[in-house]
């Protein structure tokens, strides 16, 4: 299905990543994340998040304390989602400020994606009000019941006031947040934006997903819940160069589309192809040149359902290398494409791909193949197609003039 003729390329103004912050069950920072992805071992363990009545199997961040990331004050009552987001932002900020300070706070913005970051707070507030009475429930829980609280807290803690927004579109949210930030940079509304996502583990989300799935054990290759925050520092390339900040990757192209569960298979595939083609077109990258696709799929059957046919249409018989974060880090829900993107940037910077074993059950032969750990990538694409319909794709590439690294045979 051809793109409409008026599909213009992305507006002028190259946006680059100058810092990455990841807080996950693998530990703090992207080195820990890359190591975990290389090992391929699932980080799920039995854990009781936030005082859950019984343990669940999830990739939890044990012993997390925001104090470890900076001398933050007044953080006791902010939600875990906000704390994770603040920690990841601190890490991204640190990396972005490696060679020179980042711009002043009134030129820095925050855009975060989350889907369930407020559920735990909603339950606590409601239960608290019923138990203690509405006059005595802790009022500080109430602001955490709005989904934009996490981004709001990050802005308050760091003094970032140029721009602040929250996006909530399930797995596609992180990519939408990144593009939202990139657009703001292209318009000159900010000089640096921290964009990404955060999601906390909550027993209630787990209960809901289990009810939706049925109480049978997880599908063999399905994924357990995870939690964490992944934040990228984004700037205009010229600004990064001017202040001597290293560009880790270029945000080269973006595409979005929608395909509701009720749409026909044909419409759905067309929409997914459209999102990915737009991103490729905007980046000037030919599908055959793409080194790897970071897929937000959380299981083999989901990958096939989500993108199998669409991938075949774009990448043809040669197929495409696929890497995923979910089998190791778990399902990050509203922040999943944020962690996929952060991992993709991390591996671009490391000049290699993870040795991920891709789900192969149910996939047509050759449509996808494992990232084999040997390729030194130049251009990768992250895609996410949420079950409710929102879909997005983002192409990242090494900055011009940066040597790509050597393919290891």
């Amino acid at each position: 299905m051809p793109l409409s003729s008026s599909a213009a390329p992305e507006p002028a103004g190259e946006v680059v990543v100058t810092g990455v912050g990841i807080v996950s069950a693998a530990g703090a920072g992207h080195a820990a994340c890359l190591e975990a992805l290389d090992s391929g071992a699932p980080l799920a363990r039995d854990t009781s998040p936030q005082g859950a009545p019984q343990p669940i199997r999830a990739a939890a961040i044990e012993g997390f304390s925001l104090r470890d990331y900076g001398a933050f004050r007044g953080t006791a009552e902010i939600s875990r989602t906000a704390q994770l987001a603040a920690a990841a932002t601190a890490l991204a900020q640190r990396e972005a400020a490696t060679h020179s300070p980042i711009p002043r706070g009134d030129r820095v913005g925050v855009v975060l994606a989350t889907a369930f970051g407020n559920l735990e707070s909603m339950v606590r507030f409601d239960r608290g009000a019923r138990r203690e009475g509405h006059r005595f429930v802790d009022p500080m829980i109430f602001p955490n019941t709005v989904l934009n609280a996490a981004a709001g807290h990050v802005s308050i803690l760091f003094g970032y006031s140029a721009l602040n927004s929250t996006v909530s579109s399930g797995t596609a949210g992180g990519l939408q947040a990144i593009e939202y930030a990139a657009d703001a940079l292209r318009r000159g509304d900010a000089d640096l934006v921290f964009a990404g996502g955060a999601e906390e583990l909550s027993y209630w989300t787990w209960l809901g997903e289990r009810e939706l799935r049925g109480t049978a054990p997880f599908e063999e290759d399905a994924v357990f819940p995870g939690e964490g925050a992944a934040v990228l520092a984004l700037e205009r390339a010229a600004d990064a160069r001017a202040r001597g900040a290293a560009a880790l990757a270029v945000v080269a192209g973006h595409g979005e589309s929608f395909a509701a569960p009720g749409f026909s298979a044909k419409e759905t595939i067309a929409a997914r192809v459209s999102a990915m083609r737009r991103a490729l077109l905007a980046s000037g990258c030919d599908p055959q040149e793409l080194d790897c696709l970071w897929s937000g799929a959380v299981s083999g059957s989901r990958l096939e359902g989500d993108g199998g046919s669409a991938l075949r249409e774009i990448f043809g018989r040669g197929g495409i290398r696929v890497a995923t974060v979910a089998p190791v880090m778990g399902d990050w829900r509203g922040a999943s494409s944020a962690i996929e993107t952060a991992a993709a940037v991390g591996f671009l910077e490391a000049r290699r791909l993870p040795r991920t074993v891709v789900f192969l059950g149910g996939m047509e032969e050759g449509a996808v193949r494992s990232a084999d750990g040997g390729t030194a990538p130049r251009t990768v694409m992250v895609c996410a197609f949420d079950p409710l319909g929102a879909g997005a794709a983002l192409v990242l590439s090494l900055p011009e003039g940066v040597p790509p690294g050597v393919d290891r045979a």
Partner: protein
Amino acid sequence: MTRAVVVTGMGLVTPIGSTLDTFWQALLSGKSGARPIRSFDTSVFKHRVGCEVLDFAADSSAGRGATRQGRATRMAIAAGERSLSDAGLENSLPPERTAVVLGTTLGEPQFLEELAERWALDAPPPEGWAEVVAHRCDSAATALASRFRVHGPVQTIPTACAAGNYAIARAVDLIRSDRVDLAMVGGAEAFSRLAFVGFVRLHAMAPDRCRPFDRDRKGLLLGEGAGILVLEEEERARRRGARIYARVLGYGLSCDAYHITGPHPEGRGAAQAMTRALENSRVASDEVEYINAHGTGTINNDRVETLAIKSVMGSRARSVPVSSIKALTGHMMGASSSVEAIACALAIDRGVLPPTWNLETPDPECDLDYLPGRPRELRPRVVLNNSYAFGGNNATLVFGRP
């Protein structure tokens, strides 16, 4: 070539009317949506009044599990249908070149609230979490996009009480940057016990009436509703002979980065949103002829918003009419700024500025012209629509004549 954005269709569901005419008549005549709350038992509270939408059918029990749609979603779809038919686009949205961007505060809290009602203290949690998790806050946007077979970008921006304006702003960018030609935008919010308790706990809830800018104002009244606007690229709209209510000249967003619930005490963020909006629209402050205020009726907001307006409008401030329709609609949370955007477009279209009702005693700290109790015949050239949210999210939209 700059692409301009116009409003070619509008639809709403509000506590004071769910057609444009009934809504507008209520705004001009002072018909209030404030009533004793029906959707939950208020006997344990001292506060009993809210602005519920009475003529919107409670969801039927037909269809259990994830197939049941939440109230906010159903209101959004109803408003969406009306907006499309108003625009004359029911069956002719170009799928790839249309976006849906909505805002909300709590999404669909009813599923959690229903469960909470059945959950005795100190008992294990009951079943029903599937529905809580299935009805995420992007349910309304995705249901709307599904219903109208949209294939373009679909986004949800849950920036609480400023969400509608944020959603509209995002869509303005998508149209200006030639990503889409059309967008269904706005916000939806269902009446929620949780939000009610929250505002009571914060001592921000009025006992009987919402009285924006009044010296004796005691807080907000909670409301609910949905407001959807059809935004269209101007050339396209003119080519098909669409009826244009108003132009969306631009927007300004800002972030207080000050406190999670309280505004910056001098209104710095609010002023910044207005200033940026004027810059984005290439309009000077002296062209502004009406401001639709956030005007929640809380002590803090109204005082701070007044300061912010003064700092932006300068010596002209007292001659720019300002009004808040929350006196009648209550605070519809994620839907408020989009319904207020509709009121702005109607003010331009019909040449009348809606009053601020319930303003009986002036507050020395709020000394602008709030149009107390009387509409003003005026077809404003430029209108501002303000909204401010928890988290320090501020947004101002700028509308102009077609």
